[in-house]
């Protein structure tokens, strides 16, 4: 029943996409200034059907309809309600349907909200967006149908991978997809703008809100993913420079560059071609990332389901996209005149783009190089955290300083440079860095410089914040919040990276271990039964020998039966000053347990900073809305 309804709705959406493309093409030849009401209706229907099909899938999960293979493979009657719902986008097929939904909804919203008088620009955007929708719908129907049936109907489902049953991860795909897939709309709009010759600041205005939305959600999505990794994967890290994580970071760099460049296009009517390149690149890189993740050609912590046949389809689609983008750009781009001055805001925004491209290239080469090398040379290499820290970290220093000074420089030409105040702020930063040095202990020169420059940016942002409250119109609060968040993010990552105390040892019940100012007593273990798993709970007493503070920690080993999996739940005590993190894992054929202990200063502030960065985007969005 649900299967047929779902498939019917998907097919209707597909037909409507084809119809919209056809109607839009015919509409292009009609010379007037408004778009036929019929197209609006078609798009509304398409959106409705698409959303309904997604609700049908969710319903299938909620009522545990195991006649659907997808529900059978990814759900279980005993699973909590919340994870039944999130199971709908937990699998490849379901997430593809979510992906399509976002494509459709963005296309609908773009059509409704864009107040633009260039008719052919709007229609072309709609056409290209619907080509994307059509492509993914065909992929869904022939390769990854979430509504496929299974017969005979199983009585019970196989269950969802337990480490995916986590609140942060449940919201991670929708957030990330709004970022990833949301960028499709300015991919389409970019090509449309080239073809329809709509190249002015109105183009910039029309894509700006979508850039902001996708950027803010992408930021939140990456944050949710990191939070999940930190709490759930059980080894205390939150960013591993893993290929799958890189795949989500690469589009973020491009959107960030675009978000800044689009301002130049809007205010100065300049660097149009560059903005178009960024528009096209963002979605292309998002799809490339999806290809890398879904095809399974990467070896990653996060590959839970992959299949090469999917890879082939996405690759064909990706190639078509790349060549369409290249062809459109080569055919329609025109030579532009530039007029930049060294000390203008535009130049500093270019500097932002320059750094973003450096970060992007580093991450991209680190992710792709092993694949290329294996194909060309049959050598397998690993590119991990040490590579990225060596290449990227030194350049974070000038980047932070540009971020602090850049926004202060006026458009076109800067008349007044505040060298003295920068100097004071620098002195204050160095002083605060010394404070860090004395409280926590010594660390490398490069870390010192990173911390100084991040404090430099923080002080600048706080100063701007006060200026904003005195003279509201002088500065941009959304920028201040995001830049402040970024400075804090780097500062706290720097501190946590350098001053985490960690140890790894084996203990038996009743034993104790002393190390670097801590003492850990392994008090007891006990077993408990939960709804869909059993758990072994360890009780540990942690004494901080310096402050004599005691804490009791309860790490768990969970034994899920559907499917049978062991997971390790860290016991995390979060304080504003530091997180204590303890995991325990069993050692086969022995009474000993492996204990991993970490004391991570200012962990919670990393999440707060990341959320602050994203909220800057939302603030600007609200401001645009109010104008």
């Amino acid at each position: 029943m649900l299967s047929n309804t779902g498939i019917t709705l998907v097919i209707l959406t597909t037909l409507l996409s084809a119809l919209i493309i056809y109607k839009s093409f015919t509409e292009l030849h009609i010379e007037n200034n408004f778009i036929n009401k019929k197209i609006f209706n078609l798009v509304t229907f398409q959106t409705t059907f698409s959303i309904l099909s997604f609700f049908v899938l969710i319903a299938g999960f909620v009522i545990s309809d195991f006649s659907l293979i997808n529900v059978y493979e990814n759900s279980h009657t005993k699973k909590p309600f919340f994870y039944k719902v999130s199971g709908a986008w937990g699998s490849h097929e379901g997430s593809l349907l979510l992906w399509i939904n976002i494509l459709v909804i963005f296309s609908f919203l773009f059509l409704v909200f864009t107040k633009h008088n260039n008719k052919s620009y709007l229609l072309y955007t709609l056409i290209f967006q619907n080509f994307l929708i059509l492509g993914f719908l065909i992929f869904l129907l022939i390769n990854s149908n979430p509504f496929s049936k299974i017969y005979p109907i199983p009585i019970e489902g196989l269950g969802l991978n337990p480490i995916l049953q986590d609140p942060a991860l449940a919201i991670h795909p929708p957030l990330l997809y709004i970022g990833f897939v949301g960028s499709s709309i300015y991919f389409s709009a970019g090509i449309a703008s080239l073809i329809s010759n709509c190249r002015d600041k109105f183009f910039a205005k029309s894509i700006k809100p979508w850039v902001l939305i996708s950027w803010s959600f992408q930021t939140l999505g990456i944050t949710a993913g990191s939070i999940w990794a930190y709490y759930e994967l059980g080894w205390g890290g939150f960013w591993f420079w893993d290929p799958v994580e890189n795949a989500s970071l690469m589009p973020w760099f491009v959107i960030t560059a675009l978000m800044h460049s689009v301002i130049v296009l809007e205010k100065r009517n300049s660097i149009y071609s560059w903005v178009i390149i960024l528009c096209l690149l963002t979605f292309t890189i998002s799809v490339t990332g999806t290809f890398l993740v879904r095809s399974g050609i990467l070896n990653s912590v996060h590959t839970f389901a992959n299949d090469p046949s999917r890879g082939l389809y996405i690759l064909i689609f990706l190639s078509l996209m790349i060549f369409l983008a290249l062809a459109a750009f080569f055919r329609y781009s025109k030579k532009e005149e530039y007029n930049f001055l060294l000390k203008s805001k535009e130049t500093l925004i270019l500097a932002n783009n320059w750094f973003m491209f450096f970060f992007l290239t580093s991450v991209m080469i680190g992710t792709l190089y092993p694949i290329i090398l294996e194909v060309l040379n049959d050598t397998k290499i690993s590119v991990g955290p040490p590579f990225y820290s060596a290449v990227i970290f030194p350049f974070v220093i000038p980047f932070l300083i540009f971020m602090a000074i850049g926004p202060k420089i006026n458009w076109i030409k800067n008349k007044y440079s505040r060298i003295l105040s920068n100097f004071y702020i620098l002195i204050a930063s160095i002083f605060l860095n010394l404070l860090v040095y004395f409280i926590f202990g010594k660390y490398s020169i490069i870390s010192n410089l990173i911390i100084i420059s991040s404090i430099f940016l923080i002080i600048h942002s706080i100063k701007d914040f006060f200026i904003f409250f005195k003279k509201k119109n002088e500065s941009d609060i959304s920028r201040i919040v995001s830049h402040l968040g970024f400075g804090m993010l780097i500062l706290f990552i720097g501190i946590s990276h350098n001053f985490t105390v960690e140890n790894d040892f084996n203990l038996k019940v009743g034993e104790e271990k002393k190390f670097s100012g801590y003492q850990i007593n392994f008090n007891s273990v006990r077993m408990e039964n939960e709804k869909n798993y059993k758990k072994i709970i360890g009780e540990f007493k942690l004494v901080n020998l310096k402050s004599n503070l005691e804490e009791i920690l309860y790490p768990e080993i969970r034994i899920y039966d559907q499917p049978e999996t062991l997971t390790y739940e860290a016991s995390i005590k979060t304080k504003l000053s530091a997180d204590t993190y303890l995991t325990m894992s069993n050692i086969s054929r022995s009474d000993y347990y492996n204990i991993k202990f970490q004391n991570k200063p200012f962990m919670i502030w990393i999440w707060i900073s990341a959320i602050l960065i994203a909220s800057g985007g939302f603030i600007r969005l609200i401001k645009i809305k109010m104008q």
Partner: protein
Amino acid sequence: MKKIIFIIIFSLNFFNLNSDEKTKLHFEIYKNIRCLVCQGQSIADSNSEFAQTVKLVVKDKINEGKSEKEIYEFLISKYGEWIVYKPQFNKNNFLLWFFPYLALIFGAIIIYALIKKKENNKVN
């Protein structure tokens, strides 16, 4: 006598400090070694049979006075370059290490060209 006690106390202190630093070094090395039987984890993050064994071997090698580099070279000779997360600088990998900087220089040239142009215009 006093001198001897002093030396003992001093060396005890020294030893303590050393053990903390050693733990740090251990972890630095663990994090750079791939757990071959896991999915994209380093041996620091894994509790698999393989990860445990390699950790013991690394500890032994450090106690023998081997340097970080020697340990990586030993493991690479046995398991190939796949095992280390920091790719070695050799003829296969030099492009990996250089490419980001090439991109950086390329970007600088473009920005320089854009600004330069304007100054020329001004002269004209």
